Structures are given as C-alpha cells and as structure tokens.
C-alpha cells in the first residue's frame, strides 16, 4: 500500500468514525426511548441510500479525465478540509463549544419522550430521526469516500475504510451501551482537517498544472506543514483571547465561549 493510499484510508477512517459517533448518539437516543426496531430500520434505510449514492457517483467521477478530476476533487477537498480545520482550531482554542455527546443524547431523548407513549408497531418518529441522523452524518463521509477514492481510483479501499470505522464505532457502542462521550472527537476532526487540506492542495495544484518538488513525497512536507501551522494558530488564539470575554472553563479543557456558530 502506497503512502497516498495509507493517507486515504486513515483520513476516511477518522472522518467516518467521527460522524459515526455522532450518528450513534442519535440512534441510541431514539432506540432506547422509542423503538429499537424502527430506529434500526432507519439506520438500514439510510445506509442503503448512502451506498446507492457512492455506487452511482463513484463510476461517474472515475470516468472524468485525471486532470479535471484532480482539480475538481482537490478544490472540493480543500474547501471541506478548511471547514473541518477551522472548526477544530476554534474548538481547540476555546472559541467554539466542543461537541458533547452526552448533552446531545439527553436532548434527543427528551424530544423523543415528549412525544408521549410508544406505538405498539412501527414507530415513524424513531425511523425518521435515525434515518435523518445517519444520512446527514453519512453524506459528508460519502463525499470524502468518493472524492478521495475516485482521485486515486481506490473507491473500494475508501469504502472499506469507512465500513471499518462504522464497525469499530458500533462495537464500541455495544460495549459501552452509552454514547461514546470519551472519543477525542475534536482531535480526530483536527486530523481529518489537516489531511483533507493537505491532499486537497496537493491534488488541486497538480490538476491545475503545477508540479510538486519531489512528486508524491511533497505530501510528507505538506501534512506536517499544515499541522504545525494549525497548531501555531491555536497557540496564538489562546494567547489573544481577552480574559473578560471568556467564560469559566466547564472542565480542565481550554476555556470556551458560547454563542459561536454550530
């Protein structure tokens, strides 16, 4: 397996694991408060929809000329990667609230309970919430699987990495029988943002006609370079946060501000 393929597998695995943790929380909430069978039906339907999207768009993407594919995919990955990285940097610096799986679980469970008694048969609410949760969290992963996979002509490898991440998260969820609140989501999102941004600029520049010094080995400089730059930005942000504008930290984590975009 080449370095680029390892990068593909790691990026897809981490991105998928993060989204799977968030989807698991929603499914657990409606499953425990409403109906497990209906919630799992929603999961199955959403998984099928995502598989159809990947199967339909994968061949279409791989049929594009490699130059066009690289500049389009590189640009899209870079836009995605910078979004992930920006949010992860803001969370690391304490300027954005970290994702709290226990809080999400509590909110989803309360919303489900507020609807009243459980129906005896099929529960449309549990199905719809599970379906929506898995589909929305999964779309971003499907997009990453498609773009990463198509660019290296390894959609199957990307899909396998995504499937492995889902299986790991499901196994962890079954073992814990609770939302996976201890998963270092922001660290994983940070890593995904670094990888998507690095691969995005590498492929985008190549697609636009540039040649990287050292060819594929340039990624060995780009990935640590983005990581270092992002950490320097976090460090500078932490130093520049005005004390008066910061709430007391809720835990040992960095201080956090509220009212930032979700």
């Amino acid at each position, binding site marked *: 397996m080449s370095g680029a393929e390892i990068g593909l597998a790691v990026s897809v695995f981490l991105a998928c694991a993060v989204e799977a943790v968030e989807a698991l929380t929603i499914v657990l909430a409606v499953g425990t408060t409403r109906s497990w069978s209906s919630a799992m039906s929603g999961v199955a339907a959403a998984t099928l929809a995502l598989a159809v999207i990947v199967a339909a768009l994968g061949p279409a993407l791989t049929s594009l000329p490699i130059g066009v594919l690289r*500049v389009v995919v*590189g*640009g*899209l990955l*870079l*836009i*995605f990667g*910078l*979004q992930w*990285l*920006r949010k992860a*940097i*803001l969370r690391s*610096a304490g*300027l*954005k609230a970290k994702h709290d799986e226990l809080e999400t679980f509590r909110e989803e469970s309360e919303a489900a309970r507020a609807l009243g008694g459980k129906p005896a048969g099929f529960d449309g609410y549990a199905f719809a919430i599970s379906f929506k949760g898995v589909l929305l969290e999964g*779309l*971003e992963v499907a*997009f990453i699987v498609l773009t990463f996979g198509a660019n290296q002509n390894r959609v199957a490898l990307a899909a396998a990495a995504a499937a492995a991440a889902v299986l790991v998260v499901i196994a962890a969820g079954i073992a814990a029988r609770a939302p996976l609140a201890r998963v270092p989501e922001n660290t994983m999102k940070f890593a995904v943002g670094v990888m998507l*941004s690095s691969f995005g*600029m*590498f492929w*985008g*520049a190549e*697609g*636009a*006609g*540039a*040649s*990287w*010094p050292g060819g594929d080995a*340039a990624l060995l400089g*780009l990935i640590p*370079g*983005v990581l270092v*730059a*992002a950490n320097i*930005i976090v460090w500078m*942000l932490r130093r*520049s*946060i*005005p004390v008066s*504008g*910061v*709430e007391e930290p809720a835990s040992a984590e960095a201080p956090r*501000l*509220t*009212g*930032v*975009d979700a």
Partner: protein
Amino acid sequence: MSRVQAFVLGVWDFVVGDDWLTALGVVLALGLTAVIAKASVAAWWVMPLAVLVLLVLSIRRAARGATRNG
C-alpha cells in the same frame, strides 16, 4: 421555496458551508496556479501560501464573531 431551490441551497450549504469567502479563495488560488503553470513557471507554492492566508483570515473572521457574541 420550490424543491429545486431547496436542493440547490442544500448543495451550496453542503459544499461551501458557512464561509463562502474561503471557497472563493480556493477557486481563485487554483486559477492562479493554472495561469502560472501555463507560463512554465513553478506554481506549486501558490496553494500552500493561499491555504495559510485563507485559514488565517477565516479564523480571524470567526474569532471576531465569537468574541462579539461571547
């Protein structure tokens, strides 16, 4: 809002997200890379430089919003 409009808005939101300036910057940087590469001049440096600038500007905008809201 029609279904087509809703779909287009959804795709825009999914791809571009909440920072369209960064997305525009990426497109412009790729265009600049293509122009420089076409002139047979080394163009690999454009994207790393653009990413650094875009990331810093995007964080600055978000951080200002955060401190205003905080």
